[in-house]
């Protein structure tokens, strides 16, 4: 599903965020990426979403070579990859339902399609009863659920989560991880970037550990080892 071949990312001549990274993620996997701050985890996510280009190497997403993806093609990539972040990135002036349907509107979907997809994803994330609330009227966990719902509207094959629990207490964090696992069970490949030792150890899934831009460990049933 995702192939990184000899990927390096050099921001400045003396800042190499990723060094010769090789990674193969199979369809339907749930993979965690851990590592200390500044080791290139977010950089890896940005390369996968087309926000940054690798300095060298090759990137394949579902067989599509996105190594040198053009600005015009990025939207098509984004419709195949859902992304969520630590800071949710919801629009404060729209309620949760509007935030979710916005993603479909700006991609030119018909009202009929929007009307059928939005309730479905809201149900998946368990926000049916809070659709009319604004982001500031719900908890952090619920905001992240809305962000997940939005990431799901294009029925992506891949969901990238860059520290999705970073702003949440452990109860809310666990609920989000549960939700990601459930989405993974539907067949979506999930890539989870996290600092949370407890979460990783409980998952008992594949864990990649990055250190200083290099993959230092890749375990099928991994533990947080830093």
């Amino acid at each position, binding site marked *: 599903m995702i192939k990184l071949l000899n990927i390096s990312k050099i921001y400045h001549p003396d800042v190499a965020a990723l060094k010769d990274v090789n990674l193969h993620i199979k369809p339907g996997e749930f993979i965690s990426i851990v590592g200390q701050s500044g080791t290139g985890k977010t950089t890896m996510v940005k390369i996968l979403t087309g926000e940054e280009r690798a300095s060298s190497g090759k990137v394949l997403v579902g067989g599509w070579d996105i190594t040198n993806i053009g600005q015009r093609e990025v939207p098509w990539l984004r419709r195949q990859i859902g992304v969520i972040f630590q800071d949710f990135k919801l629009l404060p002036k729209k309620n949760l339902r509007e935030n979710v349907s916005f993603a479909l509107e700006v*991609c030119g979907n018909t009202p009929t399609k929007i009307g059928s997809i939005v309730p479905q994803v809201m149900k998946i994330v368990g926000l049916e009863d809070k659709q009319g609330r604004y982001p500031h009227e719900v908890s952090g966990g619920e905001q992240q659920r809305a962000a997940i719902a939005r990431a799901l509207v294009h029925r992506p094959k891949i969901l990238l989560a860059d520290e999705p629990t970073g702003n949440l207490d452990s109860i809310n964090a666990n609920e989000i991880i549960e939700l990601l696992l459930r989405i993974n069970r539907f067949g979506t490949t999930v890539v989870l970037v996290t600092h949370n030792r407890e979460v990783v150890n409980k998952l008992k899934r594949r864990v990649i550990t990055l250190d200083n831009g290099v993959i230092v460990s890749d375990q099928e049933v991994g533990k947080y080892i830093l």
Partner: protein
Amino acid sequence: MVFLSFLRIIKFSFQDIYRNIWLSIVTITILILALFSINLLLAVRVISETAISAVKDKIDVSLYLKPDAADEEIMALKGQVSNLSQVKEVNYISKAQALEFFQEKNKDNPEILQALQELGKNPLTPSLVITPKSAEVANELIGELNKIESDLIESQNFSDNQLLLDKINSLTDKINEIGMIISLIFIFSTLLVVYNAVRVEIYTHREEIGIMRLVGASNSFVHMPFLLSSLIYTLIGTVAAVFIFYPFLSLLQPYLANFFAGYNINVISYFSSNFIKIFGLEFLAVALINALASWMAVRRYSKV
């Protein structure tokens, strides 16, 4: 699908204007101020140019003729002068007409009239009053006139004219030059202000732009609502500027008419007869600058 996107772009655009109504008002106000001051500058230029050309129109050269010159000879000379390429028109002032003008000019001066009466005959000479095609060719004209050899000509008033002409020409050149520089600086800074206003407007939408890109909106869909908004701002701004500027001109007009009494200065009619050219061009220029600003700013915030 295309139609749907079109409707949504309009919807987003109006939402954007409406939800940030204060910022929209500020942006439009800046546009109005910018357009108002540019039009003011234009009015000032129209006034100064009219004044300059009024002064230049007053320039003429006179050939004073022998008092006993025969009419046919004078007419022949007149024809010869009229044929010069620098000449706009030639007026023959006969002895009798010269006296009339003189009396009219000195009608409040009884002593001079008295003296004239005592003289018993008409002491004035006939003359040809020559108007050059423009002030710029007046000197050339004088050169040509100097070449004419005719014993009809008694004297010319060329010499002081030449000096005055040079002064007028260099002064008006300078006025035009300085006016041009000031205008350019002014227009440039106005455009900069407008450009910046649009950037600020879009800065407040950076989050939204980022999210649009994040969820896979195409480039054109991200750009369009903002381009449309800036077009709407431009339209409102231009129309408002027209509605503010005209009453302002009508307030100004009586003072101008008073100040330039005797000259035909009408700024309102200038703006009216060039309405499409002036305001259409301003609309286009501002729309272009707005679109550019919008496009650059959106592009900047959509790099995610």
